């Protein structure tokens, strides 16, 4: 009886230990412009960066590019300072804490995109060297792929690194050659430093995360076919057909295994083993107790001990959390492309048609963007198939 009480108390303690991290869920509305500020301010700090990513991109897609700047800046500060000890990250590696306990910074493709979008905004502000810094940091995020063939293989990031260098009077050839070497789709055009209007485009549904495995300990990326395969831009009678230079689905799925995958696999093994030991202990103990018929004997005590050990093992198994972290920047696109124009200073309107695999226009995605090319500086426009239209940037 005493033993059962001890077991019950142990179960109670384990249960209580789990209560510490519960927070009431945020009353999300589905409107990113209400949910994200609320989540950033009142939600769990570990999810703050994810909501900042989401908010920044949503702002950019409704043409509020300046509003995205401080949000991305704050996110990148966190992203750039993850070195060294981090108590939440340490907990995420523990048996009894989920991976999602750690502060979200995203997988390398998500981090790269945060830098990429900030780079666009720097270029737009006329700070080409800081834009280049962002593109380099974005490429750097992709530098630890398991297979070296897939490390630092974003075409557009290298292309923009070299382009900014060329525009600043330097030699961007090395970066251009890297971009050309990695190009799987459209070959990047040669640099023309007289180009004064850049149109950054993204389209198609990007990768999302899901977990598989007996205990959902394996992280995978779901990709779906994009309804959009290329883009046609018309500005002042000048037309350009653009194919994607990068594919985020490819980037997400070629990164290879993570160190954290090994941690989660170990957690899963522990969970499975303790579960099995628990079964053996409970059934074995129950069998012994049944055989002794409840008489007070050594066998009876052994049976009770086995039963308790089995229960404790089951409790440990139930408390083990090997689930992979599937928090995801789900707004990300599949494809990235770049349009380049030489336009006279002043106001212009661009019509952007998103085309399917047969080259047919998908009218529901067509956008109209009005913009003003400044004197002596580049104009930078950002357009997604998810952008609002019409827009003035």
């Amino acid at each position, binding site marked *: 009886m005493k033993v059962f009480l001890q077991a019950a108390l142990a179960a109670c303690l384990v249960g209580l230990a789990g209560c*510490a991290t519960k927070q009431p869920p945020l009353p999300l509305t589905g409107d990113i412009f209400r949910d994200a500020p609320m989540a950033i301010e009142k939600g769990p*700090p570990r999810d703050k960066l994810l909501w900042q990513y989401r908010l920044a991109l949503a702002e950019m897609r409704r043409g509020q590019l300046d509003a995205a700047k401080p949000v991305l800046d704050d996110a990148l500060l966190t992203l750039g300072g993850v070195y060294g000890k981090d108590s*939440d*990250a340490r907990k*995420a590696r523990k048996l009894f804490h989920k*991976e999602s306990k750690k502060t979200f910074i995203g997988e390398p493709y998500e981090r790269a995109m945060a830098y990429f979008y900030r780079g666009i905004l720097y270029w737009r502000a006329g700070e080409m*060297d800081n834009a280049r*810094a962002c593109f380099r940091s974005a490429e750097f995020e992709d530098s630890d792929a398991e297979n070296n063939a897939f490390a630092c293989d974003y075409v557009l990031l290298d292309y923009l690194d070299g382009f900014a260098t060329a525009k600043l009077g330097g030699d961007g050839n090395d970066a251009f050659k890297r971009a050309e070497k990695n190009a799987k789709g459209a070959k990047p055009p040669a640099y023309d430093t007289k180009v004064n209007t850049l149109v950054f485009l993204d389209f198609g549904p990007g990768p999302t995360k899901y977990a598989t495995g007996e205990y959902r300990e394996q992280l995978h990326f779901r990709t779906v076919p994009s309804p959009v395969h290329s883009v046609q831009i018309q500005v002042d009678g000048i037309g350009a057909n653009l194919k994607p230079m990068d594919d985020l689905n490819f980037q997400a799925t070629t990164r290879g295994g993570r160190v954290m995958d090994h941690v989660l696999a170990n957690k899963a093994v522990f969970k499975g083993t303790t579960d099995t030991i628990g079964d053996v202990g409970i059934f074995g103990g129950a069998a012994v107790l049944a055989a002794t018929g409840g008489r007070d004997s050594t066998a009876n005590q052994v049976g009770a001990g086995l039963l308790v050990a089995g229960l404790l093992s089951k409790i440990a198994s139930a408390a083990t959390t090997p689930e992979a972290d599937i928090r995801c920047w789900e707004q990300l696109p599949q494809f990235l492309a770049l349009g380049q124009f030489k336009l006279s200073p002043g106001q212009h309107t661009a019509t952007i048609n998103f085309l399917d695999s047969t080259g047919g226009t998908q009218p529901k995605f067509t956008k109209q963007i009005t913009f003003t090319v400044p004197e002596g500086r580049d104009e930078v426009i950002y357009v997604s198939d998810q952008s609002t239209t019409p827009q003035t940037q």
Partner: protein
Amino acid sequence: MKKQTLTSLVSTVALVAFVSGCASSGVKNPSGVPVTHMNADEQGFVAGTGVESQDLVSVTDKMARSILAIQQIANAPTPPKIVLDPVNNNTRFPINKDIFNTRIRTELNKKSLGKVTFLARERMAALDKERNLKRTGEVTASADPKVQEFLGADYFLTGELQGLSTRTKAGTSDYILYAFQLIDARTSAIVWEDSAEIKKQGLEDAAYR
């Protein structure tokens, strides 16, 4: 019986205390973290491998001392006029570029005791507007506003940040070379150049790898 009742009571109280205590456990720093004053030249507990305040301070201190020692400044018959040209950031870290020149300028102004004069070229629009107001008589002038008094530069002070970054399983390494130059505005000769190097390494928690 009495002993059992007492034991039950103590156990219940202990359990209630434990449960109530757990409400804020799991919340990191529930009482907050007090503001910590740090010197700008020391590394804080929040650090990355990029450009940080301690780097800015050490680099600009070194540059200011180095510039003051050169013959063109130390032995100039009249204080040379210097224009600051924003540094070129050739690293992977986006930075506020003006902060380097601002700190070098304030350090030089503080330490040179009038040996150099900096020209506020970044304020030209406001200065030009003020001069035009004086020229049209809309505001008073203490001297003839038609005389050109905006000074030309003797030297340009500028710099470049260059970086080398490496990432392996052992961690991330970032090397940054901070190079500054003083360029003769008349001849384009580089009359002074100095540099500082900073290398940082770090490894993120395995949960992020």
